[in-house]
């Protein structure tokens, strides 16, 4: 047995994530974990399972469903929910559109529309704390996000009103109607996520690995053809070997050319990538220089 008592960076991040998740379970009445089936939310669910073992995870998961889903991701979502034994709630963009409470955007992109069903679900279920898989390395507005992020009764984020976060003393006190978004993966990077997936043997949707797909090029991203706006007349569909670095609304999540079929391949690819994860694959972040900041202010993840 070794006398050196030090944690590797992955062990340190895991211990921190579990600590954050347990704080929420201890401090709040009605937590919920946002679960899309994407890699960050799968890692978050895995941490939650470890945090409370051998007991069950003491809160449900919520999928904000844009209706533009990759079938592989929905299948994985359902498998994971079964495997980890959690209750799945779904807040549907499509239902709100059908009932006339939400209008389709001209560009067909539904990621920004998720804010409405998310806030309705938080209100309806009276959730007081919402786990999100956001990481500070993703985007510059996220770099200033707290681990415990206070939202007002309209779900809005005001960067000037955030509480200083000292030591690991997370302050979750809030007034009635307010809620707190909690980001246990704040200090993880994309490579950390993948190394952890490899180490823990965590299953992810197949589309994270290289596969053949019919895609067309738009804004230098490979998008999957579908009824939500593609391809247009001048865009041609071709069959390519691609994988996804993020999964979101199908209409605005791009694939990247890749031959990475295993976790090790993906780690090697991510480590030498010259493009950020969101820059490579998210049309919605390219809308303006402050696109993410604006969506966060409105109550987005």
């Amino acid at each position, binding site marked *: 047995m070794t006398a050196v008592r030090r944690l590797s*960076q992955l062990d*340190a991040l895991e211990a921190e994530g579990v600590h954050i998740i*347990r704080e929420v379970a201890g401090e709040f009445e009605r937590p919920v974990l946002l679960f899309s089936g994407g890699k960050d939310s799968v890692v978050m669910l895995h941490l939650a399972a470890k945090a409370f073992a051998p*007991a069950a995870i003491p809160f449900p998961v919520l999928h904000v469903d844009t209706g533009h889903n990759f079938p592989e991701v929905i299948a994985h979502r359902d498998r994971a929910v079964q495997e980890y034994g959690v209750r799945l709630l779904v807040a549907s963009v499509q239902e709100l559109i059908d009932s006339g409470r939400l209008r389709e955007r001209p560009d067909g992109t539904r990621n920004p529309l998720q804010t409405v069903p998310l806030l309705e679900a938080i209100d309806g279920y009276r959730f007081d704390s919402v786990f999100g898989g956001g990481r500070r390395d993703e985007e510059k507005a996220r770099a200033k996000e707290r681990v415990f992020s206070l939202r007002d009764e309209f779900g809005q984020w005001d960067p000037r009103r955030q509480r200083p976060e000292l030591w690991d003393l997370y302050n979750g006190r809030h007034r009635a109607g307010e809620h707190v978004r909690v980001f246990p993966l704040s200090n993880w990077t994309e490579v950390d996520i993948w190394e952890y997936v490899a180490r823990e043997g965590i299953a992810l949707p197949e589309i994270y690995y290289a596969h053949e797909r019919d895609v067309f090029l738009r804004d230098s991203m490979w998008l999957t053809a579908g009824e939500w706006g593609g391809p247009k007349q001048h865009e041609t569909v071709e069959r390519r070997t691609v994988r996804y670095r993020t999964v979101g609304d199908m209409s605005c999540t791009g694939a990247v050319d890749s031959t990475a079929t295993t976790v090790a391949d993906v780690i*090697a690819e991510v480590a030498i990538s010259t493009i950020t994860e969101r820059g490579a694959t998210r049309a919605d972040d390219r809308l303006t220089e402050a696109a993410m900041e604006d969506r966060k202010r409105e109550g987005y993840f």
Partner: protein
Amino acid sequence: MTAIHEATADPLLALQGSGPHELLRFATAGSVDDGKSTLVGRLLHDTKSVLADTLAAVERASLARGHDGADLALLTDGLRAEREQGITIDVAYRYFSTPTRSYVLADTPGHVEYTRNMVTGASTAELALVLVDARHGVVEQTRRHAAAAALLGVRHLALAVNKMDLVGFDQQVFTAIRVDFDSVARLLGVDDVVALPLSALRGDNVVDRSEHTPWYDGPTLLEHLEAVPVGEDPALEPFRFPVQYVIRPQTDEHHDHRGYAGRVAHGVVRVGDPVVVLPSGRSTVVAAIDGLDGPLDEAFAPQSVSIRLRDDVDVSRGDLLAAAEEAATPSPDLVGDVCVVSDRLLAAGDRVLVRHGTRTVRAKVVAVTSRLDLVSLESSAYSDALVVNDIGRLTLRLAEPLAVDAYSLLRRTGAFLLVDEQDGSTLAAGMAVVTRCSED
């Protein structure tokens, strides 16, 4: 040249390294115009942590503002108001890694009124990087930042003497500043101080060694970050464990299971160790330790584990398990240095909440006894209110006793927050100064 370039060439080496890949958290601070954003941008850029699309966006934005080339400072200005006003409002966290270490950098803005940001950044940092402009040397802000870092218990101070290019890389200028800063650090009681001659704008001695400082044989900034010791040795500290949550599966398989989940704040605990439950003072013995991957013989800071106890004692969230021989004595009085982080002022008679570990208790401010002048580094007797960014000493009377350690000895169980009872906002960061040893 560096490990960084090899890292990009061989990703697997970058990921696995040779030994354990460690995490170092550090904070940066500097006055306005010391070039801190540029230095952080340079560090990210030269460690190849800035990816092509981000750099392209910075180049576009720089051009739009009429700068020549990429203004690396724009890499770190996150929010719209900051870009518009050319300032940094809030602590931002940055990430980069090398084959040996991953780094979490708390980038704190340097305005006089933002002592609270420095305090926030320093609260989780093991190293503070303080910037000065080589043309101006050690100024009030430098002393303020060094003092805040020292007060927060940051053990490693690094002084970045930036803009050396503007003083012709003059050794005498650098030496004078270093000597000046050494005396500040001595006054603050910080032992590990390193001064580095840099030009963030040109990249001298940040990642790559400068050709302009042949007289300098110390490390580059990155070399220093790679070498500074990470963490404390848990074996040298007494065991402390704030209970976060009680795990009770209530299934047939585990019907008697009762695990106290938490993160080891300090020290080491082994199965069979006698522990005391605070504040009740009940004694018991550790029966089992469940780690995140199964049973463990021992756990150490900062692991997250779940502890089972031999006796059926009453333990719940807010309690603290401590080594039986070296436990703090619970007391209804608390004396601490606080840094006020909200706009609400703090004065004698105020009712607040005290958050310590996982416990929150009501309290009353009995007295504000002194206020620390961060520039002269002297405390003055004081009985008035403390306002935002003030650091001062308070006496608090607690509604229920807390087992608080001296912050200078045990950072995580010596720290506390003052919280507003009405709106829940964080009022002040507290560091306990008076504590009772178990012998007293």
